[in-house]
């Protein structure tokens, strides 16, 4: 047995009420419908609601899908549009079959929790989805169904004692406390008084069962079965569809690439990002619904990503052209807002903004970044703080590597300074013995060579610490050599052999940052080798087709810390010897700035056990042809 009740609160009068609710009961089933005609307070709207209710009264024995099609054909629906929830409770099987379109709130209240019942975007008679989905869910004893029109605000509090309350109490509370004052409001409540009882009822299933809310939502609304076009089912549009078929397409230039805003790559992203855009761009409800419906259908039916562009005066969405879809979109948004790119590959849909937007302002840039990241304003503030922190960390790491480099240069200069000192000291003995022109020339030449070498060291040092303003294409092998040449003397004094082998190509990035990475890896290897203290110390840098490996034979990284070595402030060195920033910054530089990947593992080679760091980078096969990444995205 199903107990049920419903309430209506018209905005003005019953005759002008655009909401309707009806229930039809038979032996083994119960059909219920809740609808909301677009608009309120007019006799015309009230008459249409009455007409739909009367039609359902005559035809309630039909299947849900047939009822839906029938409602969409009623005269006037195409003028005002309607949102409708149609459900049939099979009391013998304890099942709810339902279909829903538009802004209807519908919940299933079960012992396992309150769940949203799925509804499809669009408006019956206007922007119907290309395909209608039918849903079935089971009902257990004391489970309830609550459906309201959008004239009711969020009413979750009213459902807290659902199992203990009568349907009249719940329905009355929702309408009296949550109905909007400026809209028609309707509410329908059903409760299974009999039917299958659950063997095990959990008070808090989300927690106790280990199923997260996200997993539950996925189960409730499985978008993976998104549907294809079923224009035939919505036959009121068929005649105009035929007209659209005969029309030649309108060609339109693609939006300026500079106005690219974001990608909508899932239904969730489309809903969320278009809602954000609606508020910022002050889109009307109609514009928002149209753009959202089209984007959602493109994503679900065509299985494509949708690109969003925002210029000063318009918002556009683009996605790959599809003839049937083009004709549908024509009907939804109007021919003057749809076009095909001259190459014929892209469908462009746009709306004009009521107020121009300054797309060069900082506020807009921040809004764009936030939407692209898909985070809330609060999280974005945190994100900005994190960004600032990363800048500070980068500065700290740079200072640390500067200390490293100064140490390396001190070693690098010690030898030539000794040479200069020796030559100067021997000069007076040569004068005493009788200096020749050759001696003087040799003195000048040798010292100039030494001074040149020292000068070059200073240049290399300066290059290392310059702040790159833009990315450049550079030769990886030469860049690595420019770093290690500065460390050579230091490594030699520590008794470490440095072996470089293989060949590689060019990459794009900030050269000095990349030098910093190599410096870090070689310095770390040096420190590990010195700490180990074995006699045969080797650092190998090997270039391969698309990777660089830096390997040492210092025994390897302890297994319990290898997972953490790229974390900030993580160091195994003694206090004051390591900042814990080197590898963290290296990872940021390679992964985030150069679209590459840096990993570490322990290896055993003929030289012994040690650590191996591998850097994979998107190399160029020639200066202009970047090798595509496997995950490369294609965009307009």
């Amino acid at each position, binding site marked *: 047995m199903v107990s049920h009740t419903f309430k209506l609160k018209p905005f003005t009068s019953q005759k002008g009420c655009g909401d309707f609710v009806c229930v039809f009961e038979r032996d083994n089933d119960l059909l219920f419908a809740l609808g909301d005609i677009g608009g309120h307070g007019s006799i015309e709207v009230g008459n249409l609601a009455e007409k739909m209710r009367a039609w359902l009264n005559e035809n309630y024995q039909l299947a849900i899908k*047939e009822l839906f099609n029938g409602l969409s054909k009623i005269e006037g629906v195409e003028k005002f549009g309607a949102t409708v929830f149609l459900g049939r409770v*099979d009391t013998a099987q304890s099942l709810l079959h339902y279909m829903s379109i538009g802004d209807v709130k519908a919940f299933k209240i079960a012992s396992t929790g309150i769940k949203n019942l799925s509804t499809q975007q669009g408006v019956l008679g206007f922007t119907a989805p290309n395909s209608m989905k039918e849903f079935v869910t089971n009902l257990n004893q004391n489970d309830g169904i609550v459906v309201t029109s959008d004239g009711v605000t969020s009413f979750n509090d009213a459902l807290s004692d659902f199992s203990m309350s009568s349907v009249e109490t719940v329905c009355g509370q929702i309408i009296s406390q949550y109905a909007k004052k400026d809209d028609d409001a309707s509410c329908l409540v059903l409760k299974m008084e009999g039917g299958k009882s659950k063997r095990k009822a959990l008070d808090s299933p989300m927690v106790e069962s280990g*199923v*997260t809310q996200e997993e539950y939502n996925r189960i409730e609304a499985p978008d993976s*079965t*998104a549907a294809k076009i079923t224009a035939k089912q919505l036959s009121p549009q068929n005649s105009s569809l035929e007209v659209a078929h005969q029309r030649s397409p309108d060609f339109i230039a693609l939006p300026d690439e500079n106005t690219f805003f974001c990608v909508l790559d899932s239904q969730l992203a489309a809903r969320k990002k278009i809602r954000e855009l609606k508020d910022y761009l002050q889109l009307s409800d109609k514009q928002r619904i149209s753009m959202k419906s089209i984007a959602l259908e493109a994503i679900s039916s065509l299985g494509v990503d949708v690109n969003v562009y925002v210029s000063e005066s318009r918002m556009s969405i683009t996605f790959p052209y599809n003839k049937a879809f083009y004709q549908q979109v024509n009907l939804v948004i109007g021919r003057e807002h749809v076009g095909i790119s001259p190459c014929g590959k892209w469908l462009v849909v746009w709306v004009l903004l009521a107020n121009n937007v300054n797309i060069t302002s900082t506020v807009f840039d921040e809004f764009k970044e936030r939407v692209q990241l898909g985070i809330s304003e609060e999280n974005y503030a945190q994100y900005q703080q994190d960004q600032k922190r990363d800048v500070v960390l980068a500065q700290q790491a740079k200072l640390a590597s500067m200390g490293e480099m100064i140490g390396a240069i001190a070693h690098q200069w010690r030898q030539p300074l000794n040479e200069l000192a020796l030559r100067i000291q021997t000069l007076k003995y040569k004068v005493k013995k009788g200096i020749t022109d050759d001696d003087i020339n040799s003195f000048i030449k040798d010292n100039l060579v030494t001074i040149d070498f020292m000068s070059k060291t200073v240049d290399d040092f300066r290059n290392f610490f310059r702040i790159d303003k833009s990315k450049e294409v550079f030769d990886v092998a030469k860049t690595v050599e420019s770093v290690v040449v500065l460390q050579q003397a230091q490594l030699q004094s520590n008794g470490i052999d440095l072996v470089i082998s293989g060949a590689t190509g060019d990459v794009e990035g900030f050269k000095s940052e990349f030098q910093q990475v190599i410096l870090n890896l070689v310095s770390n290897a040096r420190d590990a080798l010195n700490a180990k203290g074995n006699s045969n110390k080797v650092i190998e840098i090997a270039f391969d087709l698309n990777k660089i490996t830096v390997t040492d034979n210092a025994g390897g990284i302890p297994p319990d810390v290898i997972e953490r070595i790229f974390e900030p402030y993580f160091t195994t060195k003694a206090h004051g010897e390591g900042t814990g920033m080197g590898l963290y910054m290296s990872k940021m530089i390679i992964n985030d700035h150069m679209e590459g990947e840096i990993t570490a593992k322990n290896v055993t080679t003929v030289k012994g056990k040690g650590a191996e760091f591998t850097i994979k980078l998107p190399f160029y096969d020639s200066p202009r042809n970047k090798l595509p990444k496997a995950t490369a995205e294609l965009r307009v």
Partner: protein
Amino acid sequence: MQSKRFHIQANTDVHVLLNNVTYLTRQKVVDEVAITEIATVTSELAYNIIKYGCSGTITLSYSDTQCIIEAIDNGTGMQMSIEKAFVEGNSSSGSLGLGMSSIVRMSDEFNLTTSDSGTCVTCIKEY
């Protein structure tokens, strides 16, 4: 939550699935009745994919208290009215048509979505 997905395209895929489902369920469930019911629901859903959907996937997810069985096919949706599909004895495939109603009976939670691009059934079995 531990999950395992099986692709279903032919009867041999169903055999592989059914061999696995009993083994996987026994890792979590002691009650032989529940094990049998989970295997039966999975079997019905898998054969439905082959009968109506041509191909699809079955995903089994286990937590400490329940098993979620999700069947997704890429068929053309339910041809007959959705209400009739759950009445015992009705079938559009020429078989007995006992499948869907028995699946509902053996599940603690049952949800289905169908459209002309496929059907997704999610059953939750508590244990």
